[in-house]
């Protein structure tokens, strides 16, 4: 057996506390001068054996109660047979398999992914019954039903990938699956290395597990934990910092190399660019080394790309960076507005700039070349508009200027609620908040509120100011007021301009024209074509590399946020997963093979503690048969 909180094992001697208190009480007895010693000696000699045994049983029950309580605090784990005994039958096991780059880190020559795979195999082998196994991997998010006896190692969904893991998203998919199938009992196994970045996205958690609390009684979460991230020595990782930039005949790429040693060393960097294969030795100092790599380019070409790689080490999945540079694509916004004042306000907010941002009108058809549509509320969205949004386009509906209402007076209303941290109204990259608090709204035509529409901001009277409706890959925003005098103070620009710029950026986020993107931040549609330019079997969902997409070269890289080695503690996991309980299967063995499933005994120990408490209570209230009272009544002064 092992203990997850071994510190409490040092407190086990406290289980003797009842005995110590009992002995101390005996030492603190008071003294009484007594005459009827003959009866007392007889009683002490003949003292009911049962009564003495009862006293010792009460003490024993108290000691055992304390003992199991301390063992429960120590979070004792059992292995083997007992673990198997405690594993209950389930209809379904949903395996959430982490195949992110960090899982390729080796320890003792075995990667965390391989350890996780063995844990899953062991758990399936040792489990009872024949539950259906549903596999959801972290890279694709696809659900795969595994037939019994499937060789997991041969499964493509178990192979390493460079896309990040998002456990929150995976768990939500699993719960949706269980709820949809209405399973009576299911287990969710999360096979991961507890890398914090996989559990807590950059923008924070967005799911409240309390919404799934009704599944708590029939779902068991099991963490198949591969243990501490204690990598084999010699690992290096390569990160791309920002977008590449062109200077004359060179492409400048900012890179960072992280390693587990700090002494200077020369690290060879392999560079594939423009059909050339180059090697450059980088003299690295310290654990984290940043430099700007200069890549030679053909000055006559506009599009440039390269693949940079470090030699293979204990984790080959974090050694490669892909770079693509192309003239910045123009972001296009189309105005479908009749009011000229509103048109001017939109133009002022978008700040059209040649080569970066353009503003067009109804004459430009809605296609992937248009990223933002500013339209009038009240006009129905046609099929083309809806299809365009589903492809990733973003629409912003503004009230018609002619629909002016009575208004809120000269003072107007302020904005009462909005998300200051993230989203359209959140702080910018410099963490400067959007000054929604300074806005005054004098007139508004509140957009509708219904299921599927998220309210991003409300006025002081509770009516929505700005809503968002997700439409496929795109979105439809609805604003209740206009950036015009008499309507609001949006025309001051400190809120209006950022909103429009962000909407334009959002609309263009699915357009891979900027060159480099991060794996896992978008969903590839089935009809999309991606041609790998590096390895033939490279998958744009899974692998770092260069791809040709829509006639452009796109470089896909892994998320550097997920390179961080910080792990989430199992106690934090429990808080993360509340109200669901998380059982931890922990692998502490150096050898990944021959591992046994373990299960926490906290519940069993708690039950034992309750049993001992019940026994003690029963013994305390046990009606000891008392000797009959002195039969002859005490006749005061009279004859006996």
């Amino acid at each position, binding site marked *: 057996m092992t203990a997850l909180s071994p510190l409490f094992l040092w407190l086990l001697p406290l289980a003797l506390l009842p005995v110590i208190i009992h002995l101390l009480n005996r030492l603190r007895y008071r003294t009484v001068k007594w005459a009827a010693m003959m009866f007392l000696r007889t009683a002490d000699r003949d003292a*009911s054996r049962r009564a003495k045994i009862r006293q010792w049983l009460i003490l024993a029950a108290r000691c055992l109660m304390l003992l199991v309580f301390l063992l429960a605090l120590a979070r004792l784990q059992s292995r083997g047979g007992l673990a198997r005994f405690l594993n209950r039958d389930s209809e379904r096991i949903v395996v959430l398999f982490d195949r992110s780059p960090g899982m390729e880190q080796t320890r003792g020559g075995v990667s965390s992914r391989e350890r996780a795979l063995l844990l899953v195999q062991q758990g399936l082998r040792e489990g009872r019954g024949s539950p259906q196994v549903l596999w959801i991997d972290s890279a694709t998010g696809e659900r795969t039903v595994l037939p019994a006896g499937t060789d997991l190692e041969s499964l493509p969904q178990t192979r390493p990938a460079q896309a990040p893991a998002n456990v929150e998203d995976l768990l939500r998919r699993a719960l949706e699956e269980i709820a949809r199938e209405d399973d009576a009992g299911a287990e969710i196994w999360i096979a991961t290395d507890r890398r914090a970045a996989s559990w807590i996205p950059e923008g924070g958690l967005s799911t409240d597990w309390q919404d799934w609390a009704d599944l708590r009684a029939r779902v068991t979460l099991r963490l198949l934990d591969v243990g501490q991230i204690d990598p084999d020595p010699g690992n290096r990782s390569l990160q791309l910092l920002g977008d590449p930039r062109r200077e004359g005949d060179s492409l400048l790429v900012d890179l960072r190399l992280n390693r587990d040693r700090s002494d200077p060393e020369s690290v060879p960097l392999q560079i594939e660019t423009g059909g050339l294969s180059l090697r450059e030795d980088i003299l690295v100092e310290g654990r984290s080394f940043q430099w700007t790599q200069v890549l030679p380019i053909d000055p006559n070409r506009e599009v440039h790309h390269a693949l940079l790689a470090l030699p293979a080490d204990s984790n080959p999945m974090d050694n490669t960076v892909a770079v693509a540079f192309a003239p910045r694509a123009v972001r296009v916004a189309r105005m479908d507005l009749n009011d000229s004042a509103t048109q001017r306000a939109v133009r002022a907010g978008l700040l059209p700039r040649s080569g970066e941002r353009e503003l067009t009108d109804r004459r430009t058809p809605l296609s992937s070349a248009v990223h933002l549509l500013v339209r009038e509320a009240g006009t129905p969205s046609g099929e083309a508009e809806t299809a365009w949004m589903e492809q990733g386009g973003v629409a912003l509906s503004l009230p018609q200027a002619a629909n002016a209402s009575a208004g809120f007076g000269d003072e107007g209303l302020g904005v009462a609620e909005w998300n200051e941290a993230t989203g359209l109204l959140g702080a910018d990259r410099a963490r400067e908040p959007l000054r929604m608090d300074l806005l005054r709204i004098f007139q508004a035509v509140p957009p509708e509120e219904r299921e599927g529409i998220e309210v991003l901001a409300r006025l002081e009277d509770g009516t929505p100011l700005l809503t968002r409706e997700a439409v496929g890959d795109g979105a439809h925003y609805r604003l209740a007021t206009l950036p015009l005098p008499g309507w609001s103070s949006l025309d001051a620009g400190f809120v209006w301009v950022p909103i429009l710029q962000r909407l334009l950026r959002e609309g263009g986020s699915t357009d891979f024209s900027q060159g480099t993107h991060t794996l896992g931040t978008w969903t590839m549609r089935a009809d999309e074509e991606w041609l790998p330019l590096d390895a033939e079997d490279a998958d744009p969902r899974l692998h770092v590399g260069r791809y040709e997409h829509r006639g452009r070269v796109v470089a896909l890289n892994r998320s550097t946020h997920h390179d961080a080695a910080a792990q989430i503690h199992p106690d934090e996991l429990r808080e993360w997963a509340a109200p669901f309980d998380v059982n931890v299967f922990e692998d502490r063995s150096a050898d990944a093979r021959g591992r046994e499933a373990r299960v926490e005994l906290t519940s069993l120990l708690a039950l034992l503690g309750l049993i001992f408490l019940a026994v003690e209570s029963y013994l305390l209230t046990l009606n000891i048969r008392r000797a009959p009272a002195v039969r002859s009544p005490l006749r005061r002064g009279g004859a006996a």
Partner: protein
Amino acid sequence: MAARDSSSKPLLDSGVLSRLSRMPLQAGAPMLGPVTGMHRSATRGASVEFAEYRKYVPGDDIKHIDWQVYARSDRFYIKEFEADTNLRAYLVLDCSGSMAFDSGHGPRFDYARTLAAHLAYMLVKQGDAVGLHLCGEDTDTDLPARQAPSHLQNIFHELEAVRPRGESTLIPALHALAERVQRRAQILVLSDALMPADELLDAVQHLCFCRHEVTFFQLIDPQELQFDFTRPIRFVDLEGGADLVADPSVVHASYLQALDQHMTTLRSGLRKYHVDHRLAPVDEHFEQLLTAFLLGHAGRAVKGRGGARR
């Protein structure tokens, strides 16, 4: 007549004595005494109270012939009358360490001492002779039965001076008393009876066998009867035995059982020997005890007169 105990509380309560003055302490059985007293005598003598008829034998005093009976029966019968004589009483006071027990109602020995003093006073006042025997490890006081008032002072002095301690010597003292006191006497024993019942009953039987009238005042403390302790206690033997640490919750039932068995044995044994067994709880005033005792003895004396046999 003043008498004080060592705690400066007077031994005698004049109020009690006054209230009990009209209730003489009468012997239940006929007594043998040299002086004419208020108690029945075992012999027939001159008295105003008719006892029985018997046939005339030559030599009887003819003034006692009942001529009316002769007229009716033509036979000579002599009237016999009760002969009253004085009582000889011995107060036997247990001075063992257990008599010093005090649960808050005052030492048991003070109660016994007060009771003994009042009994002695009443007996002397009604012309009876009183003796005192103090039984203790350190004391062997034995005052013979006398009826002089000055003798009463001696009794009070001894009662004041004695201190209860050590093991009980009551049983051998009772045996010795039985042998020493030749003529029938009233033996008033004041003790807590915290000794083996069988041995005590043997001693009492010895006294009864010697035709003494025994009254046993058993002084008992309510705490000894209830044993209402809750926490473990170190019990120190007042008679110098080994201490004992006991958990009352464990021994309570067995203690009461042992106490009950002892009381039952004692009670039934004393009843068998026609001993007047008086339970004296120390939390109650001794006047109640004395009143009940005197009334009880008066009743027994009347019964005895009605059916006395030689």
